[in-house]
C-alpha cells in the first residue's frame, strides 16, 4: 500500500482466523491503513487480500455488507437522534425500514444508550458518541466487526464499559472481531489473537490463549522454611529451578502438576506463601516484537 512515494504497508503476509483479533502497533505502524484497505477505502498498489473469502479489489460491496465498522475519529450526524441515525445506517446495509428500527433500538439498548436514544447525537458526550458508533456498527448484524481505537478518549469507567461490551459481543460467538488499538490493555482484555505491526510490516503474530497456556508451565514460588532438600526434590521431578532468597522460579516438566509441588512441600514441612504463574504479558510480547 502506497500513498504517493511513501510505502505504508509492505510485505504483509498473514492469515487471521481467530474470533477476536487484536491489531497492535505503535502510532503510524499502518493499523488504520490496513483496515481502510481491507474495507476498500484505499486501493492497494500491489498484492491481494481476502476478507471472509471475498477479494478486496473485486468484491468490495460484498465485504462491506458483511462488515460492521467503527471508525477511530468522530463520526456522526449532528442533527439526528441516535435511533434515527442507527436505523438509517442499518437501512443502508439493506435491512428493511421496520426491521432496521427494531434493530436500532436493540443495538442502542445493548450499548447502554437506551435512555438517550431519542437525543440528538450532537448533544452526546464523547463516550456516548463512541457507544453510538458501536451501535451503528452492530445494528445490521455483521459477520465481522472492525473496531478502530474504540476506547479513544474514554475515561476509565467508560473504557471498562466499552471493553465489557466488546467481550459480550465476542462471547455471543455470532461474529468475529478485529480490534485495532495501540493500547495493549484493550487488546489483552478482549482478544484471543494478536497481530503486531511495525513500520508497515508484520512484527509478530500470536495466539494469546496459546501463549497463556504455554506460560502456565512457568511457576514462581515464595516459600518459608525451604532448603536445598526441597529444591533437589523438585529437580528430581525433571523441573528446572532457580533460587533467589526465599523465592523459587521453576519451569514445570511435562507430566508434573502443581499438586506434586504441594505434596513435596507438605512432606518437607515447607510453607508455600505465594504461587504465581509467571506469564509473558502482552507488553512483553509487544516489546519483543518491537525489538526492544
Amino acid at each position: 500500500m502506497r500513498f504517493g512515494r511513501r510505502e505504508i504497508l509492505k510485505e504483509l503476509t498473514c492469515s487471521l482466523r481467530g474470533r477476536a483479533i487484536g491489531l497492535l502497533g505503535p502510532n503510524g505502524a499502518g493499523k488504520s491503513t490496513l483496515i481502510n484497505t481491507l474495507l476498500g477505502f484505499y486501493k492497494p498498489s500491489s498484492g491481494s487480500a481476502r476478507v471472509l473469502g471475498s477479494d478486496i479489489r473485486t468484491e468490495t460491496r460484498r465485504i462491506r455488507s458483511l462488515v460492521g465498522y467503527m471508525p477511530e475519529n468522530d463520526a456522526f450526524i449532528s442533527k439526528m437522534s441516535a435511533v434515527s441515525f442507527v436505523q438509517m445506517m442499518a437501512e443502508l446495509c439493506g435491512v428493511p425500514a421496520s426491521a432496521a428500527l427494531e434493530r436500532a433500538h436493540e443495538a442502542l439498548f445493548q450499548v447502554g444508550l437506551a435512555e438517550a436514544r431519542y437525543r440528538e447525537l450532537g448533544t452526546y458526550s464523547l463516550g456516548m458518541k463512541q457507544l453510538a458508533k458501536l451501535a451503528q456498527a452492530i445494528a445490521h448484524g455483521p459477520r465481522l466487526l472492525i473496531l478502530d481505537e474504540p476506547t479513544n478518549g474514554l475515561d476509565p469507567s467508560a473504557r471498562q464499559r466499552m471493553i465489557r461490551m466488546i467481550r459480550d459481543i465476542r462471547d455471543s460467538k455470532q461474529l468475529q472481531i478485529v480490534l485495532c488499538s495501540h493500547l495493549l490493555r484493550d487488546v489483552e482484555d478482549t482478544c484471543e489473537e494478536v497481530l503486531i505491526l511495525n513500520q508497515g510490516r508484520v512484527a509478530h503474530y500470536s495466539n494469546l490463549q496459546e501463549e497463556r497456556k504455554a506460560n502456565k508451565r512457568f511457576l514462581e514460588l515464595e516459600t518459608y522454611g525451604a532448603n536445598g532438600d526441597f529444591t533437589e526434590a523438585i529437580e528430581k521431578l525433571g523441573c528446572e529451578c532457580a533460587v533467589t532468597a526465599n523465592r523459587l522460579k521453576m519451569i514445570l516438566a511435562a507430566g508434573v502438576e502443581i499438586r506434586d509441588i504441594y505434596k513435596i512441600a507438605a512432606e518437607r514441612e515447607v510453607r508455600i506463601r505465594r504461587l504465581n504463574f509467571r506469564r509473558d504479558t502482552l507488553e512483553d510480547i509487544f516489546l519483543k516484537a518491537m525489538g526492544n
Partner: protein
Amino acid sequence: MAVYRRVYTSYVGPLTPAWSRSLVLFRYSRRKLFRSKLQTGLFVLCFFYPLACLLIIYATHNLAFLERLGGAGSLIKIDSKFFLTFVTVQGTLAFVLTAFTGPGLISPDLANGALPLYLCRPFSRAEYLIGKASVLAIVLSQITWIPGLVLFVVQASLEGPGWAWNHLWIVGSIVLSSLIWIAVLSLLAMALSAWVKWRIVAGALLLAVLFFGAGFAQAINAVLRTQSGDYINIVYLMGVVWTSLFRVENEAAISSAEAWIALLMYCAICLALLVRKVKAYEVVK
C-alpha cells in the same frame, strides 16, 4: 426480538435490493429538510406564482372576466413568452430554495466525519451523491417543471387540441430549461458545501458565485472590452439557454450552443470537485 434482550444477534431477515439504498438517503434528507419551518415556508411560497399563473390562464378563457377588463384583457397572451417568464420566476425561487437547503445536505456529513460510516456499507460514493442530489432534484422539480407542465395541460385543455399540437415543443422547453437549471444549482450547492464544510458559508458562497459572478463578468467585459466575461456569468448563460429554448429573441453576444457548453462544463467541474471531496478518508501523500 424484544428490545429488553441485550445480547448481540445477527440479522437473518430479507434485504432490500441494492438499487433502493439511495432512496434511503433521499428519504432521511427530505425528512430533515422539511423539519425546518423556514424551508417549509419557502417551499410553500414557491407555489404562489404557479397558482397566479393558473388563475391568469383561467381568466383569459373566461369571457365575462375579459369583458370586465376591457382592453387590458387582450394584453395577456399565453404563449412561449408566458412560459419563459414562468420558468424565470420559478428558477429564481428555486435558486433561493437551493441556497437555504443545498448546503445542508453534504456539509454536516463532512464536518462531522460521517462519510466513513456511509461508505463502509455496501453503498458507493456515486450512490451517496445521487441520494443527496435527488433531494434537491425532486424538491426543485416540484416547483419548476412539474407545475409548468400542469399549466401547459390546463392551457391546452382550455384552448383545444390544435393549440396543444402547435405548441407541443414548449413541453420540451419547460422540462429541459428546468432540468439544466436544477442540475447546475444542485451540483454547485453540493460542490460548495463539500469544499467549505460549513453550511452558512456554503449558502453565502452560492449567492456570491451567482451574483458576484455576474458583477465580475461585467467588470471583465468593461475592462477588457470583450464579451468573454459572460462565460463566467452563470445567470447570463442560463438566460441565453432559456431564451433559445423558448424561441424568444435575445441580443446575447454568445450563441446558445456556447452557453450550453459553458454550463455543462460548470456541471463537470462541480462533479469533479465533489468526487475529489466525497471520500471516506483523505489520502495525504
